[in-house]
């Protein structure tokens, strides 16, 4: 083999995530995030790639899983990257006016939505 190895999977997750080693436990595979307008100077290559996915989002969001699939990054790494970008103010989670509703409401809403499909 000639030249340096370029397999991106050989890059350790903490290199990708610039030191952050743990995801925020609230940042899960289905967590949807939106682009915010924080300063982007000094972002690492992987963080820039994540932010690039929002270039044509028109205010729309992506879940952690969507980001992992689009960039072909392991989802565990994306959870950490997204946690870090939320800390930096570059990504945000959408906020509902009634965000303190209990989770049981979520289940009812899911059920109502599914029933409307059949």
């Amino acid at each position: 083999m000639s030249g340096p190895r370029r397999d991106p999977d050989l890059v350790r997750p903490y290199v990708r995530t610039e030191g952050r080693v743990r995801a925020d436990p609230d940042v899960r595979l289905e967590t949807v995030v939106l682009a915010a307008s924080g300063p982007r100077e000094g972002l690492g290559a992987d963080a820039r790639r994540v932010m690039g996915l929002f270039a044509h989002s028109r205010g729309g969001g992506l879940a952690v899983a969507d980001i992992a699939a689009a960039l072909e990054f392991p989802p565990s790494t994306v959870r950490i990257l997204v946690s870090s970008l939320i800390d930096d103010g570059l990504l945000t989670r959408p906020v509902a006016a009634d965000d303190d509703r209990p989770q049981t409401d979520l289940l009812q809403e899911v059920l109502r939505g599914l029933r409307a499909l059949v």
Partner: protein
Amino acid sequence: MVSAPSSDGLIHVPPGVTRSAKIVISGSFGVGKTTFVGSVSQVPPLRMEERITEASAGVDDLARTPHKTTTTVGMDFGRLHLSDALVLYLFGTPGQGRFRPLWEGLTEGALGALVLVDTRDLEASFEILALHEEQGTPYAVAVNLFDGAPRYDLDEIRQALDLAAHTPLTTCDARDSTSGVLALITLCEYLTDAHAPALEPRP
């Protein structure tokens, strides 16, 4: 309600969506999880890959150095836009229960799991059911009606799988979107009745 892909081919979650929920579609290898996710999802299903390092058991390991192998495990997922404010993600689990860390990431925060089973190999589901029970993920079971697979009475299947009396057992055709949605409704009705034990934070 599903937005068109943007110029980069991504289908973003529409602005205005403030909540997302997750249901896992589990079951043993080849039971139809990918098919199910693909037919129920309202966007083309996607796949993500995690790399897992496993210690493999050496048979004649004279040097006693642990052998490690890296396995790439793919997980298919899809998305349903259930209202202007709510999206539901469906995640297919790996067919084997041995990828524990992966399963934890998938089931953590899930409303529940729909376990697909194949009547030609019910035993293959035991490991999956045990894992959900161990992790405290509430589940319903759906027999995927494969063409040519033997049809049994649901009571017999319930017995063979040793399901609790309260666990819902239904049938579905993983290739059919409506049939899949009905199975998800069965699961969600059960979760509502069961006061959603999985929604309590686990230590």
